[in-house]
């Protein structure tokens, strides 16, 4: 997968979602292209979402161009914060925290946001030490739950890999893996808090993630076969960021298809799209084929 295109209320939120999608935590390691700045509608009616394209940045590149974009993103964020209250009203169960969180952000000194992207090149975080922090947190969590199990942590390339094993640890998976997801979120929060760094974290509990990854990969490949046969695009049901990553990886491993995500979490979903081969005479037909296939209602996944 080369890049993701993300729509959200604000540039900041779109970038964040895009980075999550790509599994990249570090702002320095993505290239951001703002395709559309958000516009507020009149009295909350109308208006446009922000559209950004987020792309992994190859290691070690100059920072010159990115800076100006960063500034644009921040400017847009301030504008959109006030519009954010509309979104909160919809998500009523988080309304309270959301508003407070927003206030918090406004209070937060600016430097804090700027420091992160500019210092990463200078001090590479020690992933092994970070993995240890995650391991300690998870062991403490098991103890707090009073569950027996083993925690194993390690580092694979740029990713911290944590595995909680043991019969009793099934309780930490939860229905459809919701508890595992929450623990993942908390582990990342603790990591950031204690080390001032983020890293990709893969967390498996009681073999759940691995089983799910396998099942999703099989599912994705069936859909890819279908898209390759029928052409056009196929819209999947909404999924978590980690599930979408599995689909994106499966698509990336196959020829002739590409994938991207649309919508806003938690209703964000992947679209698998056939790459039409542009030949000289078939060029006009091509666009017609894409248009036909992109109808979301006729191509909806099960």
């Amino acid at each position, binding site marked *: 997968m080369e890049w993701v295109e993300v729509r959200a209320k604000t540039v900041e939120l779109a970038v964040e979602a895009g980075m999550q999608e790509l599994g990249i935590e570090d702002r320095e390691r993505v290239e951001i292209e703002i395709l559309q700045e958000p516009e507020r509608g009149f009295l909350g009616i109308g208006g446009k979402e922000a559209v950004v394209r987020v792309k992994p940045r190859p290691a070690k590149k100059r920072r010159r161009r990115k800076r100006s974009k960063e500034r644009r993103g921040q400017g847009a964020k301030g504008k959109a914060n006030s519009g954010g209250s509309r979104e909160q009203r919809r998500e009523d169960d988080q309304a309270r925290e959301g508003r407070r969180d927003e206030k*918090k*952000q406004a209070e937060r000194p600016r430097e804090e946001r700027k420091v992160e992207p500019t210092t990463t090149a200078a001090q590479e975080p020690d992933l092994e030490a970070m993995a240890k922090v995650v391991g300690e947190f998870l062991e403490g*969590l098991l103890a707090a*739950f009073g569950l027996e199990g083993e925690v194993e942590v390690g580092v694979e390339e740029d990713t911290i890999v944590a595995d909680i094993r043991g019969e009793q640890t099934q309780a930490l998976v*939860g229905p459809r893996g919701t508890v595992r997801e929450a623990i993942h*979120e908390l582990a990342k929060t603790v990591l950031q808090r204690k080390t001032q760094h983020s890293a990709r974290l893969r967390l498996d509990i009681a073999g759940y993630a691995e089983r799910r990854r396998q099942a999703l990969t099989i599912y994705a490949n069936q859909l890819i076969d279908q898209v390759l046969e029928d052409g056009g695009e196929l819209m999947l049901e909404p999924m978590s960021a980690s599930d979408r990553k599995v689909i994106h990886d499966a698509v990336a491993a196959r020829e002739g298809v590409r994938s991207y995500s649309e919508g806003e979490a938690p209703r964000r979903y992947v679209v698998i799209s056939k790459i039409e081969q542009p030949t000289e005479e078939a060029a006009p037909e091509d666009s017609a084929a894409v248009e036909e296939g992109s109808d979301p209602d006729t191509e909806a996944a099960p």
Partner: protein
Amino acid sequence: MPKGEIVDRVVRYVVSEIVADPGAVEVTVVEQGPSEVVAEVHTAKSDMGRVIGRRGRVARAIRVVAQAAADEEGLTAGVEFID
């Protein structure tokens, strides 16, 4: 074992791990009914944002984990963040 003890332990642990000032963390588990408890969480004012997180993500995760802890005791658990 008092009702909600696991909820108490888990919420206390998670919140303390996240905040900058664990000493200021107070968790009180209040019985709301025969099988329902609410964990009231106080932190230092400056830590509230950490515990809630961007768009309430951390708070939501704490709620999910608190419910998982409550499941161990056959309870329903809510979490309230009070400043």
